[in-house]
């Protein structure tokens, strides 16, 4: 009952804050801006490279396609003259291609003022090799169109997983796994730190002793942890709502294209219309079964909430304990909280291995060990995880959560009323062992 009063205060005092509304709205926007921004910058920030080609082979002249960042032009001037222009910075690079034997491997030189990285060389290699191939085919007397249709990629591979023979989609699973792992990482640090600073505030404000004369320290600690958890859930719920609304707004556009194939054809890109049909099919299957390309989004979301809560509770208790150890200064806080954040950072490292090979030993261990399991298991779930491992992971996380909470409660109870002196790890150890 009293814990409920504390939860209520912790929840309302956070949700009512202007900063809560701002972060809730801003974070997804920031995320989108970040994603779009980086990809935009990645294409835009590359400098335009002007490559002058001296083609004596007659093979490539006027046939190289310029890209956004690599522009080709041709010159009949002597290489010496062009080199002088190059060193005077008139263009970026100079390629000299003499007549050469099509049947022998060749290496051509690219002259430049600075090291240009892989872009120019690989672009040239691809295009010139393609031209050489076309020329060889022409010389062999094969029809070019026939060759094209004969050499088109026809074969791809599909994972079929387990006895149920479910279609596995590695790309989507990777994206969802990575995204949920990172989200958990951010949430655990964000909300954990929120619990920590709040405990620190109560301690340094000296309100703690007044409160614990009415309720048990454990109630105060749990009230705070649960209150912040509810704030987190509220935030996630608002984001899901945000997503749904965006989806609802976007839906008519997708189905609009579907209903009107004329219009789709008018776009003349057959592939794109095909893409839309595929997209529509995906949406329909998703609506019916909650599954997207073999990844069950609904189940994944439920697991996400479970690992979010489990991981958060596990770490929040530890963060609360750390908060209670701090005396005035922020430095103590940093020192202690580093110890807690380390396993969270390790989780991210293990997660990247887990995504490459979801069933490797490290991935399996990481997804069962409670300090790393929230992030690592979350990254594996979209790939499908054996039930036994899931069960182990759930049990270990629940056990770990109970253990850290009991541990934290012991530290918190004493720490929150300790003023004036620096607390050593040795003392903390004594508090944990002590019965009363």
């Amino acid at each position, binding site marked *: 009952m*009293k814990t409920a*009063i*504390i939860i209520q*205060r912790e929840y309302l*005092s956070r949700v009512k804050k202007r900063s809560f509304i701002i972060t809730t709205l801003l974070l997804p926007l920031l995320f989108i801006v970040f994603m779009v921004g980086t990809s935009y910058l990645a294409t835009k920030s590359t400098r335009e490279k002007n490559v002058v080609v001296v083609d004596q082979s007659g093979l490539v002249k006027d046939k190289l396609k310029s890209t956004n960042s690599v522009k080709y032009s041709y010159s009949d001037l002597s290489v010496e003259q062009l080199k002088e222009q190059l060193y005077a910075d008139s263009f970026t690079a100079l390629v000299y291609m003499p007549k050469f034997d099509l049947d022998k491997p060749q290496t051509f030189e690219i002259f430049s003022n600075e090291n240009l990285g892989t872009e120019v060389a690989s672009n040239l290699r691809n295009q010139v090799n393609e031209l050489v191939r076309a020329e060889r085919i022409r010389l062999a007397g094969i029809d070019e169109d026939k060759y094209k249709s004969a050499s088109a990629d026809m074969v791809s591979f599909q994972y079929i997983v387990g006895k149920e023979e479910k279609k596995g989609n590695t790309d989507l699973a990777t994206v969802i796994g990575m995204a949920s792992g990172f989200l958990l990482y951010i949430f655990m640090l964000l909300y954990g730190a929120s619990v920590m600073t709040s405990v620190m505030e109560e301690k340094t*404000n*000296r*309100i703690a*002793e*007044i*409160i*614990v*004369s*009415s*309720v*048990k*320290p454990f109630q105060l600690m749990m009230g705070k942890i649960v209150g912040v958890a509810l704030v987190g859930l509220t935030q996630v719920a608002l984001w899901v709502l945000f997503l749904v609304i965006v989806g609802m707004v976007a839906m008519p556009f997708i189905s609009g294209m579907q209903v009107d194939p004329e219009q789709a054809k008018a776009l003349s890109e057959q592939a794109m219309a095909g893409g839309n049909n595929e997209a529509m099919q995906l949406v329909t299957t998703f609506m019916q079964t909650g599954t997207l390309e073999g990844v069950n989004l609904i189940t994944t979301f439920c697991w996400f909430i479970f690992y979010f809560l489990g991981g958060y509770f596990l770490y929040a208790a530890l963060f609360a304990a750390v908060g209670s150890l701090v005396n005035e200064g922020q430095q103590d806080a940093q020192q202690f909280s580093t110890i807690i954040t380390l396993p969270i950072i390790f989780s991210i490292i293990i997660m990247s291995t887990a995504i490459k090979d979801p069933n490797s030993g490290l991935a399996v261990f990481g997804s069962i060990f409670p300090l790393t399991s929230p992030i690592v298991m979350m990254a594996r779930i979209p790939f499908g995880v054996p039930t036994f491992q899931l069960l182990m992971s759930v049990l270990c996380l629940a056990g770990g959560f109970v253990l850290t909470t009991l541990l934290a409660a012991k530290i918190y109870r*004493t720490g929150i*009323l*300790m*003023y*004036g*002196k620096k607390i050593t790890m040795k*003392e903390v150890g*004594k508090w944990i062992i002590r019965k*009363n």
Partner: protein
Amino acid sequence: MQDQVLLSVQHLKKAYGAHKAVDDISFDIKKGSIFGLLGPNGAGKSTLLRMITGIFHPDSGTISLEGQPFDGLKHTDLIGYMPEERGLYKKMKVGEHILYLAKLKGLDKQTATEKAKYWVERLQMSTWWNKKVEDLSKGMSQKLQFVATVIHEPKLLILDEPFSGLDPVNANVIKEEIFRLAQQGTTIIFSTHRMEQVEEICNQIVLVNLGKKLLDGTVDGVKQQFKEHIFTVSTTDVVKQLPDYVKIIESNEYSVRFQTADPDAPNRVLTQLIAQGNHIHSFHEHLPSLNDIFIRLVGTSPTARPFSAA
């Protein structure tokens, strides 16, 4: 005043590692009395109070409230505790804060609101209701803390240095409230190292130092116990001579201060002075102040250790 015991503390012990913060302390507090818990900083007062409020568990010994063994769940709502180091949530509003603390003491929303309004009015704080706590002066937050401590009408009110930081006017307001509550039957534990306040307020005192109880009794009783049988007699004429069985400490033309262990001596001195034809102007015994007793008992011991839980 009833003679019923409200709080009984028996052989209470609490150690932090090798450091004995409270070392076998026992006392009883009568219902409706104002009980002074005295001691220098670090004597173990805070630890003692934290055990009585249920914040700490004693290592051994018993605490009973109204004859029943102390039970945190049942009894915390009967106690109002204002610790020495006290703070508030800075971002909350005054009214909100009072209600929150009242609800934590088990009051429902409606009762809490009624009581809060009553106390806020009583201490002339009505205009602060919607102010943020961070905008209050130190004295104002002290008053707010006092209200939050008494709002649930505790049977046992524990005030640790309640006047620190208060100006004389507000200190007086709080003092009057303490007296009024005591008259209404609230038992009050008043912890301090300011002796003049204790003499003024308390009926009963306990003096602790280095975790041990040094002294227990009523203010008058303690003074009697520590009196040094020093008397001053002043006369309208020059004092000619005193009997040689008293020890003269100080004398001037019209008054003499003397010490004697003989209970009959004062009477005999007076008789002799009167017989000598002196006109007695005044005659009184010097009782030591609590401050003197405090310094005499504590001053000689090694300085009190700062509170630590190592």
